[in-house]
């Protein structure tokens, strides 16, 4: 918060293994002046829909900050915020303002979008930058983008093309993003950090149990980034 100093809004990811830690992080985020928080469905326990409902009620009524929920059924064994659950939460909670939607599925996204936007027209549907294009025509308004640490220009160009409805251009950029994503998703986020080293923005190793990109892996990443023209088209260094 200090470094940003109000230049752009900051949302803080408060998802923790222990729900009690999540609650504490939410309080902390509010105290230090965050603009909002992001919280995933609880980890590990494969909670029922009612348990997910109660969790978000508890979290969202414990703070006044806007809350973005994080729906990731593909990572969390089917633990999912359905359209129906989304509508109950929106009706109950004035600060339940958006979702990072990571089902990456046309039918699920459309259903959430349909339900949420009818109840709260400015509800924010965000996805990962690697799937921005298919989300925007169905109501998506943006993305979280870890790839921005390696290729911010590409991320911005893709976002602008999508928002302007320049679909052929957006398609080309999205395909390019896929090639990069393919590179990073292998041992994510180790390879992303490896890419940052190549771009002159090293941020150190990845903590175990994740591996850190080896010299060989970094050489491979560098070659791929060169092939894709990323070394020329994206900024180097801090």
């Amino acid at each position, binding site marked *: 918060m200090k470094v940003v100093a109000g230049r752009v809004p900051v949302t803080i990811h408060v998802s923790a293994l222990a729900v009690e830690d999540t609650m504490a992080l939410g309080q902390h985020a509010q105290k230090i002046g965050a603009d909002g928080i992001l919280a995933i469905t609880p980890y590990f326990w494969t909670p029922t829909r009612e348990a997910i409902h109660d969790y978000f009620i508890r979290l969202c009524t414990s703070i006044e900050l806007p809350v973005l929920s994080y729906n990731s059924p593909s990572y969390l064994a089917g633990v999912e915020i359905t359209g129906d659950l989304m509508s109950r939460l929106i009706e109950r909670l004035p600060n339940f303002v958006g979702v990072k939607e990571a089902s*990456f*599925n*046309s*039918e*699920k*996204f*459309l*259903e959430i979008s*349909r339900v949420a936007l009818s109840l709260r027209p400015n509800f924010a549907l965000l996805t990962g930058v*690697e*799937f921005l*294009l*298919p*989300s*925007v*025509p*169905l*109501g998506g308004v943006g993305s979280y983008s870890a790839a921005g640490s390696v290729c911010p220009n590409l991320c911005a160009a893709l976002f602008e093309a999508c928002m302007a*409805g320049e*679909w*052929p251009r*957006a*398609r080309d950029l*999205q*395909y390019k993003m*896929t*090639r990069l994503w*393919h590179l990073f998703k292998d041992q994510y986020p180790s390879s992303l950090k490896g890419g940052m080293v190549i771009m002159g923005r090293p941020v150190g190793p990845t903590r175990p149990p994740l591996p850190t990109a080896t010299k060989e892996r970094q050489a491979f990443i560098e070659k791929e980034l060169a092939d894709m023209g990323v070394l020329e088209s994206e900024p180097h260094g801090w």
Partner: protein
Amino acid sequence: MSVFEPVLEPVLEPGLVHTPVTPFTRDNRIDYDTFAKLIEFHIRSGADCLALPMHIGESVSLTDEEQRALLAFAIKQVNGRKPVIAHASDAGSAIAAERARHAQGIGVAAIVATTPYYWTPPPHMIIEHFAAIGSVVSIPFFVYNSPEEMPGSKVTAELCLKLIDRLPNFAGVVDLSLDWQFMIELLTYAKRKRPGFALIAGTEHMVSAAATGATGLFSPLAGVAPKLVRKLYDSCRKDQLVEARGAQEAVAALRQQLKSSGNLKAAQRMMGRDCGVPRPPLQAPDAEAARALAATLEPMLRDESRGF
């Protein structure tokens, strides 16, 4: 050995593909008189192409002989006015391959096949299965990716890329996974290997598919709501993706009601296009469920035409 010489990249742009149901008589035989009327209805109602008998046409409840006869009848009835895509899927690779070879012999424009039924094979077996079917024909070959119907056998982008290397006539994927990751990855890499490679939406969830670059649509709902489906498809093909959202929501709501063959046939009857009931083990909705379905559908289908 193939009787046909494979040619490089045969081209078929399927466009909006109607996938008709198979009409049955009261004693469960194929009702060809009704089928003729149904084919005319589809051609008149905006089909760019027909594909049959798909799962919605109860392909898996038709004998091999019936599938061949049904296809031959359709080819004769269509009489070259639209391309016909033949569905050739089975548990055994050789059975599916023979059906595909027969289909090309009687003049279909392309073949579509899904992963083998029942076996839940690993990727290298799926590749062999598709290669066995695709390599006996020289017309375009499409893979039908339907993980919800075929759990346990996963068609990945990587598998498709290997299949491109194996089959010069592998022309595209009909996708029912609705999975953005699969669609984007497939098009990103497949188009670099084979520029004409096509992604075809396998259900009426067309907007996101079209955004990623899908150019075709297999539509079971076209038998019930051809106007609405055509509107959705045309908007998507013109890249009017944001504008297509209204039609997309309407079609999705309809699809929610009509996922099963039983309900789809009940809806066809309601629209004055009675094609009988599904063969066992599928069941038609009982009288009460059919009335409730009709009441739900009525306001959704006001703009669609009735009768054949």
